[in-house]
């Protein structure tokens, strides 16, 4: 299952995170090293009993894909959203 999460709220996200929940082993690397703190481990379980991450601040995602580079289980990645609007938002860079 791939869960796609989009920007919500006041800020306009510059990136989107995709999570393959079933591959996750809950190491927490993505949560810890996300420069803009987009993620948290969820309380939900995947079928192997791990708590996969979920997006708590989608609006902050810069699409830098550091989560994807850190994830040892190939379970998460981020992409930049193609169409940037005129006004810049606060999403942090790596």
């Amino acid at each position, binding site marked *: 299952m791939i869960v*796609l999460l989009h920007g919500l709220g006041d800020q306009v996200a510059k990136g*989107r995170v*995709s999570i*393959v929940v*079933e*591959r996750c*082993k*809950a*190491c*927490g*690397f993505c949560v*810890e*090293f996300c420069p803009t703190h987009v993620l948290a481990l969820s309380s939900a379980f995947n079928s*192997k009993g*791990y708590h996969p991450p979920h997006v708590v601040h989608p609006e902050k995602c810069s699409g830098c*894909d*550091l989560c*994807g*580079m*850190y*994830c*040892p*289980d*190939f379970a*998460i*990645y981020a*992409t930049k959203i*193609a169409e940037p609007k005129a006004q810049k938002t606060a999403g942090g860079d790596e």
Partner: protein
Amino acid sequence: MNALDQTVNPVEPFLRTDRMPHIWCPGCGIGTTVNSFARALIESKVDLDTLALVSGIGCTGRVAGYVKLDSFHTTHGRAIPFATGLKMANPKLSVVVYSGDGDLAAIGGNHLIHAARRNIDLKVICVNNLIYAMTGGQSAPTTPGHATTSTNPYGTFEPAFNLPHLLDAAGAVYVARWTTFHVRQLARAMSEAFAKRGFSFIEVISPCPTLYQRRNKMGDGLDTMKYYKDKSKVKHGAPTSEVGLTLNGEIVVGKFVDRDRPDYQSMMRAQYVESLGERYIEAPETECVCD
């Protein structure tokens, strides 16, 4: 379908996705190194059809089974000589050796230094988790002093290999060390190795939360990554004699060696041309033994 549906994890095209999830433990760093490897392949525009990956045995040895490349999971310690044969017989191949510290530096240690001496055109990625992981946490030649392992239950007392120093001395043309925290630097180092001709060696310090960190009360994979973040010091060009690792100390990372000298096959060709002149027949690009 919107544009988003077409994006994929950049590592995905390089994986045998039918073999996922992989066997590596939660918090193991090997998968992280594969992410950097995938980015390096993208950036270097390596032709994946002519890229071969060779592994030995152990946790990192399983990389060969997970990458969608011509990939060889060989015997313990022998990835480098296998890769040597592959490269000699088919020089157009770009050959990567992806294996662990026990495999490359202990049982395969002799092959490691001799391939570096010969300057065989191989890119060696050594994931160093400081322990024999797959067999249950025994001491490796890289285990830092005083660490507790299953075969040194009262603490190790053997001095450990400083791998960059060893490879520097043996003649590698490119020697770098990063940790799994340094994912972008690691990808760049791999790209640089792809651009070099000759024996390149990249050491990646990587957590083994199950067998190294746990037994040494160092926390989990994430704690180890934080340790890497806090205690790593980038020192490009550092004398390799000064980059040895300790149990809890600083980890010197960076590019230590980047030099040029002729690789084995260039030297071989030059020698034959000099000695044999027109009698020398160069091996065809790919040997044809098929009908």
